[in-house]
């Protein structure tokens, strides 16, 4: 069923009795034309774009638990496309453009809010780096504005500009960036995919692959064998585990990234702010809570919970730019698993096994990429080759040397 002003009025008059589930809880069929493993944002978006852009409707998205119950519901909801390297920037900008029309496209309110993402800089050298990144963005047709201190003061007068160690000198602003409601993004893609006939199968964990003659034939699952000539993996966080079932060893480590929400306060942070001298990013939810996070914990983890030193580090970073939050109480804290790739950039590509495709290695960048990732992955699966937009996000770039290392940190996943 669709959502509209008319349907709201109708249901208001009928006592809200006519609403139906936003998607069907489908049972798996014995065979599909294509299967996407992973019912998070990326997997559901892939299912949606496979149906919408490529006319593949006899397909299924398999989720081991319930949709959106993994990392899609564990991020800090920020969307942006402020990357330096062309191979990354064009994919994140594609994603940004899809965000801008997403709700009308899906007929679902994902609460996309282009409230602006501001990266603060604290030294002359950092200003130069940000100017370079802003120029790189503008060369790709993406909006970027370099603000001086006066410009930042107009937006956020209460920041600690004269901090003795990290004075705020200005910032790089992407006005089209902002936030979106993470759960609603998963639900919206599920709703959109379901309306195009895609089966969304929950509580269906993949336990193995049938591969013969170097080509994938189907998947073994907790709900039986399902055959499909094309299978895409969108299981970031658990990619190594699932890929190992197909005999693949990948340039990925799983790490835990923590996030936090404070008690609700009146409107304070009306955009997204990031600290340039440490790692801290914050926005304010519509309920009033500050949503913030920092670095990954830094060691391999599948535990979905972090440790105290990073909690302390995040709080210190926050206090360094906005001491006004010092007496706010933290309501909730959680950890999500991220695929840290060896160069800090994602992978959307074929694999050495015919018919098996890989969408992985999202590091911190997964949520903002959700629509663009699904769009590129659907193209790669349907056409059996990457689109130009994801043509740099290859699995073999580590062997060929064409890595995409935004940070220049080398093959050290915990430093990206």
């Amino acid at each position: 069923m669709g959502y509209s002003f008319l349907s709201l009025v109708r249901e208001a008059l009928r006592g809200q009795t006519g609403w139906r589930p936003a998607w069907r809880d489908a049972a798996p069929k014995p065979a599909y034309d294509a299967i996407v493993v992973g019912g998070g944002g990326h997997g559901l978006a892939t299912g949606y774009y496979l149906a919408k852009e490529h006319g593949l409707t006899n397909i299924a998205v398999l989720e081991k638990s319930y949709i959106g119950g993994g990392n899609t519901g564990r991020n800090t909801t920020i969307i942006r496309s402020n990357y330096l390297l062309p191979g990354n920037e064009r994919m994140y900008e594609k994603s940004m453009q899809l965000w801008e029309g997403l709700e009308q496209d899906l007929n679902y309110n994902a609460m996309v809010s282009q409230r602006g993402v501001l990266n603060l800089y604290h030294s002359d050298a950092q200003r130069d780096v940000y100017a370079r990144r802003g120029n790189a963005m503008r060369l790709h047709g993406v909006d970027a504005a370099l603000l001086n201190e006066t410009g930042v003061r107009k937006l956020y007068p209460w920041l600690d500009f004269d901090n003795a160690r990290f004075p705020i000198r200005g910032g790089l602003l992407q006005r089209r960036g902002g936030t979106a409601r993470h759960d609603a993004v998963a639900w919206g893609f599920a709703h959109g995919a379901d309306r195009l006939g895609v089966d969304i199968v929950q509580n269906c964990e993949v336990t193995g692959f049938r591969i013969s003659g170097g080509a994938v034939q189907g998947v073994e699952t907790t709900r039986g064998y399902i055959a499909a000539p094309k299978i895409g993996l969108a299981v970031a966080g658990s990619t190594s585990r699932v890929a190992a079932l197909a005999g693949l060893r990948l340039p990925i480590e799983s790490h835990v990234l923590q996030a936090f929400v404070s008690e609700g306060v009146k409107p304070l942070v009306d955009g997204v702010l990031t600290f340039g001298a440490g790692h801290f990013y914050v926005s304010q939810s519509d309920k009033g809570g500050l949503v913030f996070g920092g670095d990954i914990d830094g060691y391999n983890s599948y535990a979905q919970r972090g440790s105290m030193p990073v909690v302390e580090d995040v709080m210190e970073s926050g206090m360094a730019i906005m001491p006004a939050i010092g007496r706010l109480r933290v309501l909730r804290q959680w950890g999500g698993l991220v695929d840290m790739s060896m160069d800090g950039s994602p992978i959307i590509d074929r694999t050495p096994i015919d018919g098996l495709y890989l969408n992985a290695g999202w590091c911190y960048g997964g949520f903002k990429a959700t629509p663009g990732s699904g769009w590129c992955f659907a193209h790669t699966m349907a056409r059996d080759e990457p689109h130009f937009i994801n043509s740099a996000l290859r699995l073999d770039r580590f062997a060929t040397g064409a890595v995409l290392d935004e940070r220049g940190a080398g093959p050290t996943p915990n430093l990206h």
Partner: protein
Amino acid sequence: MRIPCPHCGERGNDEFVYLGAAALTRPAADAPAEAWHSYVYLRDNPAGLHSELWQHTHGCRRWLVVARDTRTHAVFSATDAAV
């Protein structure tokens, strides 16, 4: 998470710096590119027991091989990497 350093005793993990998997063997300098690709980039990344390198940077500065469960963060042992 606390790591039992064989030299300094049990300490909080914020005294240590993490490197990664300990079970990697450095190929010979003239080994084929594939061996180097595997050594530099590919990882087992297990969910469960993981043997890994940590340096006690705020203690004895020794490199340690730590056995840890990546699902629970339980640390089973820590030995000096050079001994």
